[in-house]
């Protein structure tokens, strides 16, 4: 039963197990508290960004502004955060608010402006990265060291970043997705017309999904800031497309309606860790992009190999 529910995540889980197995074989040190912390820290930012992307993808859209919101959050946090705990809490809330606001703009334009999500978020990608550049024209800024260690440190074998990820996933996202709103998000992604007929407020659902996505992307930016302890307006760029890749690799369908959080989180760790694994395997840094792209392409082809065996091509076209 559980296996069937998580069937779509299976590919990512298997890939990550194989990858970690090979990493452990090459570099036994990863089985230390330090290694655990390193592994967990590497994937957490992308995992949070992938959760943001997933929430939007479930409604049948795609959010190209995820990376820009990550960069904006990073710029705000590293520029305005002072040393006092009060300032840290205020700035964290401010950053999450900025993420929610960014998501709100996306959602309103998609739902009430009736513009395709890919265009809206392509445009807001420019706008949010513009604001990030206004706040932080040059890389720099700082955050208090206790902010960084609280998020990226570890207690024995337990990295704090994993706790952060669990808290965000289980205490923020899971209750929402299990609520009436979550059901509505899946329904709207699957069949907007049908959802409307069943009395679901399609527009409000869309806006909520984009706001949740914005907040999650801001979480990713906050964690990234703890990792880098400085601000860089352009640092988020890579997270847009990697988050889409993680979501698809993790078994969600671009087009909406299907996808669970587990797959994309696992896939995000796979995509983030693979570079270190290649490094440990002694692959020259020039070949790393080749392997990263090649493995992504291979995994995607493998996941869709069923299309080659289909007798009736029409069923493929309609899927």
């Amino acid at each position, binding site marked *: 039963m559980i296996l069937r529910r998580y069937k779509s995540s299976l590919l990512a889980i298997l890939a990550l197990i194989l990858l970690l197995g090979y990493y452990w074989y090459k570099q036994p040190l990863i089985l230390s508290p330090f290694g655990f912390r390193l592994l967990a820290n590497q994937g957490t930012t992308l995992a949070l960004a992938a959760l943001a992307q997933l929430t939007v993808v479930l409604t049948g859209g795609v959010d190209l502004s995820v990376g820009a919101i990550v960069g904006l959050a990073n710029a705000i946090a590293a520029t305005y955060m002072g040393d006092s705990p009060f300032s840290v809490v205020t700035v964290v809330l401010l950053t999450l608010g900025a993420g929610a606001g960014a998501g709100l703009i996306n959602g309103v334009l998609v739902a009430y402006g009736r513009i395709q999500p890919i265009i809206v978020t392509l*445009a807001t990608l420019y706008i949010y990265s*513009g604001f990030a550049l*206004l706040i932080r024209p040059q890389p720099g800024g700082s955050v208090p060291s206790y902010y960084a260690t609280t998020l990226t440190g570890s207690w024995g074998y337990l990295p704090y970043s994993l706790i952060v990820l669990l808290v965000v996933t289980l205490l923020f996202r899971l209750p929402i997705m299990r609520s009436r709103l979550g059901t509505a998000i899946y329904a709207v992604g699957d069949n907007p*017309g049908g959802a*409307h007929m069943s009395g679901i407020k399609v527009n409000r659902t869309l806006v909520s999904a984009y706001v949740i996505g914005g907040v999650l992307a801001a979480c990713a930016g906050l964690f990234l800031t703890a990792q880098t302890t400085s601000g860089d307006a352009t640092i988020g760029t890579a997270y847009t497309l990697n988050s889409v890749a993680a979501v698809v690799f993790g078994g969600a369908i671009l087009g909406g309606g299907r996808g669970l959080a587990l797959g994309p989180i696992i896939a995000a760790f796979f995509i983030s860790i693979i570079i270190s694994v290649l490094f440990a395997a002694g692959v020259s840094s020039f070949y790393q992009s080749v392997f990263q792209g090649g493995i992504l392409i291979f995994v995607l082809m493998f996941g*869709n190999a069923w299309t*080659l065996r289909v007798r009736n091509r029409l069923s493929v076209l309609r899927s």
Partner: protein
Amino acid sequence: MTTSRLAARVGAFTKHGVAVSYGLLVVLIVAAVIYNPAFASWGNIQAQLQIATFIGVIAIGQTLVILTGQIDLSVPWNLTFSSILMATLYGQGYGAVTAVGAALLVGIVVGLINAVGVAVFRLHSLVWTLGMNALLEGLTMVYTNGQPPDSTIPGFVRFLAVGHVGGFPVAPIVWAVFAAITIVVLARSRFGRFLYATGNNEPALFLSGIDSRIVYVGAFVASSVCAVLAGILLTGYASQTYLGMGNDYLLVPIAAVIIGGTNIMGGFGGYVGTIAGTLIVVLLQSILSVAQIGQAGKNIVFGVIIIALVLLYAREARPTD
């Protein structure tokens, strides 16, 4: 003509994205000239057309791909890799034809691989072409060892990019030729009609006996070759190749296609609108530069204008209708 008929005409006019984008282009030009009369100088027009050529040529491919309902995100490193390959081969003493031919071959192969992923494995082009882009970035790094390539440029590439014929720059002529071919192909050929049909209703196209896989191959190979051509022109223009030279040419041509009124989900639009979109994008960038608005302000204005334009003419039907 009665007022209601006039209103209907105006309504139809604004619904048509192409008309709006050309209208906006005229408004932008007038505003630019009023703001700074030097905009209308022959030197500046030449410079703008020169820059528009790179974006316009890439946008040819993006228009074809977007009409089928897909997107090509492999442009940046496809462009960079093939340009560096061309310049390096030429620098090593191979002839100009071999060098340019090798670059074009890279384009064809990349386009074929893109098409295979989308047409045979039915993967979403947003992810598939992205993977290709990462792969090509890696290949570029391996090929150059991460060093900035040091190379000489074939003479006729320089001529195509920055040469003049009778006082007129060659690059925009190259663009105009490709643009004319694209427009005719889209409007008059079977391939053109199949492109629209693929974007509109692929199962219906399949049921009428056409293999849409061939259509994807055509669109993606064309897009990839356009990216290579733009890269070659850009190399001639800059007299050098460098890592990351393609990074500015991913989202801007896509924005030009959208501003030109082509539906991002495919099936509607065309290159006539994309030309206006390209010129609008180039003009906007240069107005913002002249107004000494920094990169941050440029990004914000650019995004707001895309949204404003799309709100004006490319809204979807209500999902609830």
